């Protein structure tokens, strides 16, 4: 279980996260939704142990990170806990293939060729896998970044808007793939604006606004919101689409 309790984070006087608590169970899909600028990405970075909250507690499979830290930070369990960011951060001097393989090779993982072949097949990457990131489209880079994380066989996979540049067919493929990962005991935490995915695949939906969790529950909350703020948010999205 990946759990956040009462997480506060800010820059100076500017509060970004204000007492956020949530849990990401293994074998489940947790979808985080909310308006832009509400602290979703900051929360993901905190969950990925890349930011140090001002207060609160993070727990990853029993290892507790209590903030503010009283001593040196215990080692982060990367890549058991890993993330794919909206900006992807693919290494520009390596081909997409090497981007995917290098971390796994350095970790001495076995059976990588078969894993890579399966990912290439699953994400239709055969045509561009040997291109450099700057020679690939954003959608192709998104698929490669996701594959780089998946080949490491994480227990918790944090994804920040990784389908923003994909066409509908590719989105469906990737989301189906992610849905199927539930059976492999991977806890998936995904920030997305795709409410359709949240409705059909999420075991848990969390709605954030102004740095706080306003409402959470099963995907039923998207059909039957309990708070005015979520209702407004869903109404705006429905009107826009």
């Amino acid at each position, binding site marked *: 279980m990946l759990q956040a309790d009462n997480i506060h984070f800010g820059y100076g006087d500017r509060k970004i996260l204000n007492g956020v608590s949530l849990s990401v169970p293994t074998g489940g899909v947790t979808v985080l939704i909310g308006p832009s600028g509400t602290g979703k990405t900051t929360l993901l970075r905190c969950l990925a142990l890349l930011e140090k909250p001002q207060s609160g507690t993070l727990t990853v499979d029993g290892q507790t990170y209590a903030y503010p830290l009283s001593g040196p930070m215990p080692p982060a369990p990367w890549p058991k806990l*890993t993330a794919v960011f909206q900006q992807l951060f693919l290494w*520009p001097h390596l081909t997409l293939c090497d981007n995917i393989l290098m971390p796994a090779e350095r970790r001495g993982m076995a059976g990588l060729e078969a894993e890579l072949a399966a990912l290439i097949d699953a994400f239709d990457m055969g045509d561009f896998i040997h291109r450099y990131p700057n020679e690939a489209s954003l959608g192709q880079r998104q698929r490669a970044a996701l594959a780089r994380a998946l080949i*490491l066989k994480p227990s918790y996979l944090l994804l920040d808007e990784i389908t923003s540049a994909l066409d509908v067919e590719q989105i469906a493929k990737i989301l189906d793939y992610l849905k199927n990962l539930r059976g492999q005991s991977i806890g998936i935490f995904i920030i997305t604006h795709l409410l359709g995915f949240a409705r059909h695949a999420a075991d848990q939906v969390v709605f954030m606004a102004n740095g706080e969790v306003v409402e959470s529950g099963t995907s039923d909350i998207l059909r039957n919101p309990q708070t005015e703020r979520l209702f407004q948010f869903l109404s705006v999205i429905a009107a826009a689409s």
Partner: protein
Amino acid sequence: MSVFDILLTYHIAFLQGLRVTLMLCAVIWTAGLVLGTALGVVGAHSPKSWGRFTRGASFAFSAIPTLVILFWLHYPAQAALGIVIDPFYTASLTLSLVNIFAVGEMVRQAVTDFPAQYIIAGRVCGLPTRDIVTRIQLPILFRQLLPGLLVQQVGMLHATLFASLISVEEIFRVAQRINSTVYRPIEIYTALAVFFLIVCLPVTMFAALLKKRFTRDFSER
């Protein structure tokens, strides 16, 4: 006398001058690349101490003309200290300092500005620090710095001509002395230009080879 005749007649003098020029280059390039890189890395990791020192010294050495520094170290500094140093060493020290601080500042800036997101991606992929440095940071920095460093080293080769002004018997001074004997400026300075082309050609070809092998346009379309 043709260019070829002059080269043939004075080839020993030219070769001795070339040897001195190449020795100067060896000292300047080695000191600049090794010590400059070390200074730049230390400066990037200690921005308030070594970083400020590197920035300040680099500014001073780029603002003050190299010739002024060379003359200052050769004449007033030695007179004030009451010592006499072989001009070769004075020239080596001066040009090495210029190169060390130029390379140091280039490396410091590149390391400081290195995009943190590539390191973050390495961390969340579970790469140890050693792999992040050797597999991600160094290759990207090397590709980024290579063209500038090579241009700087060719510039330092040209700067060795200043050493002739404090009586270092490098190739330009040899050419001047031969010219004062035979007075064939067109042929002699053409020969000198050919010498520099011959010396610069391998450096330029090596630079082009490295560039072709290791540098790519990283910009995303």
